[in-house]
């Protein structure tokens, strides 16, 4: 009989909670303004850079470290583009319910990740990356893009989606390797 990973039920709960919290919160309240969309987009990218920073400290797995390096570099590149655009448009990102929800969930996730070591950390990190990218893709496609008024900001968000999907596929690839 195959031994069940003790982390699995816990992770499933966390993943479901994350998906529900991010997607549900994003849909439940009023329409976002462009400064609020910009704030949520930058925050979502910044959170994944912070998850990667924890991976650099806690992991020794080559695949996990390569993935974390890509997340850190790519999300920094997206933030740079977003900052350049909002500067050009003279838009000041404004904190809102979605930003706050993202930050609150991220704090819980960071504490959970930091409590793991070795293989347990690698699994927890990559499982979270799969769940986080699924949730962010859903939020960008169904909330942020439809609610964005400015066409340049909308185009930027649309251009980010393929990168998020490639990140998700990459995370799932690493997840298969380390769950063997």
């Amino acid at each position, binding site marked *: 009989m195959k031994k069940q990973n003790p982390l699995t039920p816990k992770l499933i709960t966390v993943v479901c909670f994350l998906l529900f919290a991010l997607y549900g919160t994003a849909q439940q309240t009023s329409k976002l303004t462009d400064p609020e969309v910009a704030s949520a987009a930058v925050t979502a990218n910044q959170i994944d850079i912070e998850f990667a920073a924890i991976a650099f400290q806690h992991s020794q797995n080559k695949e996990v470290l390569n993935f974390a390096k*890509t997340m850190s*570099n*790519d999300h920094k*590149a*997206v933030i740079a*583009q977003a900052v350049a655009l909002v500067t050009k448009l003279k838009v000041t990102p404004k904190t809102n319910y979605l930003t706050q929800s993202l930050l609150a969930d991220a704090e819980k996730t960071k504490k959970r990740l930091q409590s793991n070591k070795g293989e347990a950390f690698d699994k927890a990190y990559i499982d979270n990356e799969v769940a986080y990218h699924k949730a962010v893709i859903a939020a960008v496609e169904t909330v942020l893009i439809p609610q964005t008024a400015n066409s340049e900001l909308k185009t930027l968000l649309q*251009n*980010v989606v*393929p*990168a998020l*999907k*490639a*990140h998700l*596929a*990459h995370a799932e*690839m690493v997840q298969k390797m380390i769950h063997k």
Partner: protein
Amino acid sequence: MKALNKTGKLLIPVLCMGIFMLLQSGCKSPSERMEEPHKGKLFVVEITQMRFSPAEIAVSKGDKIQFINHDMVAHDITEEATKAWSSSPLQPDQAWTLEVTESANYYCSIHPVMKGKITVQP
């Protein structure tokens, strides 16, 4: 008079050949003339929306492929089986040119889900 006619008969084909050669070189643009030492054709693969486009390309040995990164993140182009060749990371709007010597599967080592294929035609 007879001597002049003989010289004239010899000069006519030589002059015609010279004019023909001048006209031929004059018809080529400066860029075409500069490219003459490279006999292969130049193909372009664009990197956009996290994909190589076209993802599969058929070329002849000695042709060149220019990869242009139109994405907002860095990519590279790496031979997949043995990593026989690789570009350095291409930042947005940077390009890299490969001279093709053999068929190869390649990928982006930064985003391993991005893949492409080069087929060398006989």
